[in-house]
């Protein structure tokens, strides 16, 4: 393995790989997050619905998936899917589905907890002055629930960002996969340690950015209340 002159060679000589890494990480992050938000909202709504069967299904889904390691969910989707003889999907698509299905449970729980923070009296008062269901929701309950949901939801999103790394174990080209790609090629500069420390640094920076965003939003909503 050839060694570069400077420490930054690991970045600049492998720029194509880093670009690919950030591309796939953001891809998994955004589309996984999208699935998680949509599915999580549906499941969260099921868990607070007046329909007992919907509540039971939501509870079962959340309890099953939340007690399964993310690695195993990936295992089911990436390795298990191909055994079902369904149309071919790339590992990346399957990985996005896995992380979406997993994170949806956390989104659902966050939304449910947020709605539960609104005192029953608020809704009862709204009904007492004659507001119909739609206005009780849009004017009274959801604005209050939204405010208490934002900070924990951001924590779920930060966890989602960190969980994208698990995709590397299933051959999806997110950041940590760079380490094996660079180690396996004999011409690219950089030791595993250098690559991984840069990956760690990138995640620290990204998480700091999201944490800052979380604090900003939290402060804004707190004043509004």
């Amino acid at each position: 393995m050839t060694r570069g002159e400077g420490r930054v060679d690991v970045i600049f000589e492998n720029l194509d790989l880093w670009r690919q890494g950030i591309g796939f990480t953001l891809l998994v992050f955004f589309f996984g997050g999208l699935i998680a938000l949509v599915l999580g909202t549906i499941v969260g709504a099921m868990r607070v619905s007046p329909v007992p069967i919907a509540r039971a299904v939501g509870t079962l889904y959340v309890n099953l998936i939340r007690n399964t390691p993310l690695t195993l969910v990936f295992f089911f989707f990436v390795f298990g899917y191909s055994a079902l003889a369904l149309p071919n999907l790339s590992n990346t698509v399957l990985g996005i589905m896995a992380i979406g299905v997993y994170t949806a449970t956390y989104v659902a729980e966050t939304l449910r907890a947020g709605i539960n923070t609104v005192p029953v009296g608020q809704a009862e008062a709204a009904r007492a002055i004659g507001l119909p269901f739609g206005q009780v929701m849009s004017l009274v309950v959801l604005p209050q629930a939204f405010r208490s949901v934002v900070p924990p939801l951001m924590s779920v999103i930060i966890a989602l960002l960190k969980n994208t790394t698990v995709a590397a174990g299933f051959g999806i080209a997110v950041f940590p996969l760079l380490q094996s790609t660079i180690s396996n090629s004999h011409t690219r500069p950089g030791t595993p340690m250098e690559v991984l420390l840069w990956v760690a640094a990138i995640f620290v920076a990204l998480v700091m950015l999201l944490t800052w965003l979380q604090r900003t939003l939290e402060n804004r909503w707190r004043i509004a209340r």
Partner: protein
Amino acid sequence: MTSVLYDVPGPRARRRNGILAVVTTVIVVAIVAFVLWRFALSGQFEASKWNVFTYTTVWVQIGTMLLNTLKAFAAAAVLSLALGFVLAIGRLSEHKWVRVPVAVVTEAFRAIPVLVLMMILYYGLPTLGVKMEPYWAVVLALMIYNGAVLAEALRAGVESLPRGQKEAGYAIGLRKSGVMMLILLPQAIRAMLPVIIAQLVVTMKDTALGFIITYHELLYYAKLLSTQPGRPILQAALIIGGIYIVMCLLLSWFANWLEKRTHRSPKNPYVAPHDPAADDDATMTSVLATQDLGQVGKQ
């Protein structure tokens, strides 16, 4: 039943709920039926697919791998609790030169994904001439990450305590270590017990990441089984998944039970607002006695 979201249903709402129940049932049954149909179509129920699980040696191996998972979990849980206490106490220190570096380290540990930590320990360290077993890479990575998370939980627990607790400790002549050990930490641990146990469930789940750095745990064995004759990928994943779910559910139930139990405890300051009438007589008497003495001193 009334809730924030809906009132007691009337006849129309009951009819609508009935329809929604039927629709939910149909959708869920359709999804389950589709999966089962694909299972049947691709021959997942055939005996050859499940054949490996009829061998005793396979189950002995699963037992060994389960033990490996539990070994990593137990070591990581104990070590991360220890690290959590150290970091929490460091971050609560009154000396700036202790508090600031510990805060930076804790935040960094929390921000780095566990898998990246594992890979640094397993693939990265050999570059520096340190060879590490996968077991220790898993345990140490889990210790670093969960230790930092637990430290934050403990710190939040200590900071949520009324300031009078600490002041009372100093007033009766305890030193800093005494106030922390005898007064603040015991209350913080009790308040944060559900969070601590929930984090232990996360630790248990994250041991499965060891699979990616070739630690011989349950999921690694599922992968190994899937290369056996008949390629029982889904079957192995289902059985190993069941074991994980049972383990995590047991821990979660334990957490819930503990939470209920601590909430019932009259000592918990977070459940019932402090009731002076509940103070036992001895304390009141001694307070009165002290006040009397003070008045004697003034005369």
